[in-house]
């Protein structure tokens, strides 16, 4: 087999899945960081674990659809609980979030340890780190396989799922662009012109939850948290225009996914080691390096009225 065939078989689908997961998370992340809700992504990705464990205990399988539904339900329960504790208990949002996601995560771990999951591949480390490297395309024999229906039918199902979710989130972002933008920057004005501000806010959180759950399925929760925050934050330091920021975040997310995957897969070989390191961890680390560069040199890194770096 040629080099190209190896690439298509072993690297093409993981890279595509990584890119799509990164974009699906980065898009809602733009609005979350502007609304100071960046850590919603963190909270959601923690409660995905209890969601999938409960789904497994109920259905007895690790089929994708029940897992996704369980994770989605857990995310909604978590958001509702956070809201309830904030309102009923008068607790500040950060602390309410901290109480909910740690308690649910602890419950998930306990359930997992107590139930017999030895015959299925379900554990905490897998949930955190994902299994991007294993999502390979067995049937592929080279670039020509992209035109071969039989080979295409063998694509990892995660690819189709994350592609559908990424596309749906992109379409939603375009369709609801104006209300999202208005309610994010000036909630009072948005309310005054009759926009359903709280519905928009809830819709954003649900979209973020769907992105987190779909991405989690493929890449684990580290990438999810990193992609919600790092690419949009990087783009935020590069521009003052929201449209440019969103496009920028898509670009940085793609760059992080490609660079991270390549460095994880081939970097150790270049350094003389014989096995790869975690692609999910490396993608998160690369997105952080890019953000670090933007923090040091981004043209719009300072607050308005404060000289850059001052």
């Amino acid at each position, binding site marked *: 087999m040629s080099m190209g065939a190896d690439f298509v078989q072993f690297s093409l689908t993981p890279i595509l899945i990584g890119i799509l997961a990164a974009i699906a998370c980065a898009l809602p992340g733009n609005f979350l*960081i502007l609304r*100071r*809700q*960046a*850590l919603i*992504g*963190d909270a959601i990705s*923690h409660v995905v674990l209890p969601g999938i464990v409960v789904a497994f205990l109920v259905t007895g399988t690790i089929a994708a659809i029940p897992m996704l539904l369980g994770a989605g339900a857990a995310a909604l329960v978590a958001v509702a609980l956070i809201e309830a*504790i904030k309102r*009923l*208990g008068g*607790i*500040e949002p*950060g*602390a309410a979030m*901290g*109480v909910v996601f*740690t*308690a649910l*995560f*602890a*419950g998930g*771990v*306990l359930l997992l*340890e*107590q139930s017999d999951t030895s015959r299925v591949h379900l554990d*905490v*480390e897998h949930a*955190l*780190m994902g299994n991007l490297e294993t999502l390979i395309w067995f049937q592929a024999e080279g670039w020509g396989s992209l035109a071969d229906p039989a080979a295409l039918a063998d694509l990892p199902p995660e690819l189709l799922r994350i592609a559908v979710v990424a596309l749906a989130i992109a379409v939603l972002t375009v369709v609801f662009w104006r209300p999202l933008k208005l309610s994010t920057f000036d909630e009072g004005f948005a309310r005054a012109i009759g926009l359903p501000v709280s519905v928009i806010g809830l819709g954003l959180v649900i979209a973020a939850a769907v992105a987190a759950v779909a991405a989690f399925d493929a890449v684990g929760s*580290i990438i999810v*948290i*990193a992609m*919600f*925050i*790092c690419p949009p*934050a990087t783009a*935020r*330091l590069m521009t003052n225009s929201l449209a440019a920021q969103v496009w920028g975040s898509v670009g940085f997310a793609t760059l992080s996914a490609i660079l991270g995957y390549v460095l*994880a897969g081939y970097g*150790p070989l270049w350094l003389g*080691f*014989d*096995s*790869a*390191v*975690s692609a*999910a*961890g*490396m993608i*998160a*680390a690369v997105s*952080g390096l890019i*953000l670090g560069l933007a*923090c040091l040199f*981004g043209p719009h*890194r*300072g*607050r308005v009225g404060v000289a850059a*770096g001052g």
Partner: protein
Amino acid sequence: MSGFLDALLLQAGYNAALVAIGAALLGFAAGTAGTFLFLRKRALVSDAVAHATLPGVGLAFLVMVALGGEGRNLGGLLIGSALSAWAGLLLVEWIARRTRLAEDAAIGAVLSVFFGFGVVLLTVIQTLDRGRQAGLEDFLLGSTAGMLFQDAVIIATGGALVVAAIWVLRRPMTLVAFDAGYATALGVDTRRVDLAMMGLVMAVTVIGLKLVGLILVVALLIIPAVTARFWTNRVEVVLWTAGILGGASGYVGAALSASAPDLPTGPIIVLIAAGLFALSLLFAPARGILAAALSHRRFQARVHRRQGLLALVRSEPIHDPLTLRILRAEGLIRPDGVATDEGRALAAKIARDERRWDVARAVHQDTSLTGRYDGLTPIEEVFTADQIADFDVRLGAPHAVGA
């Protein structure tokens, strides 16, 4: 069950006892240090600190192995984790201060990136030498199974030291947590106190790594403080209540886990703390959901009673079922809806007090007094008997109605 009692009474072996005491001290330290964080509204900074320990653990392991050491030495791993946690903390502060990103974005960025890098290091360690690597994953979720005696000593000593440090620093930290502006005006260096607070949070995180793991140690810092806040409005009381709640969760959780080896320590401790939180959220006096619902019901009853009495004054029919029920229960109306003597008397008093308030508003320009008119506060609670007598003089003598 007897195993649990043994563990609870420190009879389940020397190591288990030491772990239980260590967990109690750690819980106490986490509860109090977390209170300062919570009152400063920076609870989730601890999440960044906790996740930022992972690369330190990995690097410390690699360094110790490179120096020909054992690699799994807990002291060395904890020093490494403390250094990288401190780096993460400084980065959060730097990003939030120097760039226009908000603190929550800085927290999320640091926690995911440090954690991601830590996972990369763990996979590197896996490839180096499978045999010696075992155990680093325990830092994710904590594990007391097979804990060495010296590890238990490190945890117990560390917990005791943090508690002592909190005792020494409690006054300036309380002051800053409660009102940073006032503290600055008094000449307290808020930044240094904040740094000390973060140092304590970091110490708790590092000591808690082996016991509850880096993902869940955050819970020990946040949940007891939030729980304690339900029971009191006094800062010192919140502080020590949070400590006791955290300590109790740690102690009972460690005992439970020692008696049932299948139960992982960290999640058990966190779930006990979360259970105490849920109880407080529901049943705490004044701030709990139940208390709020009851006080809402009482308020509703007062409003309905008054509206009913006003209707009696004006001889208007009452249709609202709740109003009718309240008035009947107090014997102010008969079952057929006609006012009793008592009802008429109370209605007459309310009508008279309304007239008194009218006069009071005309006479007194002081809105701090007349502003207290809400239709429910009795006029006797706002004005003195002399003042009310004066209003009555201005009103004129009572005259019989319909005579």
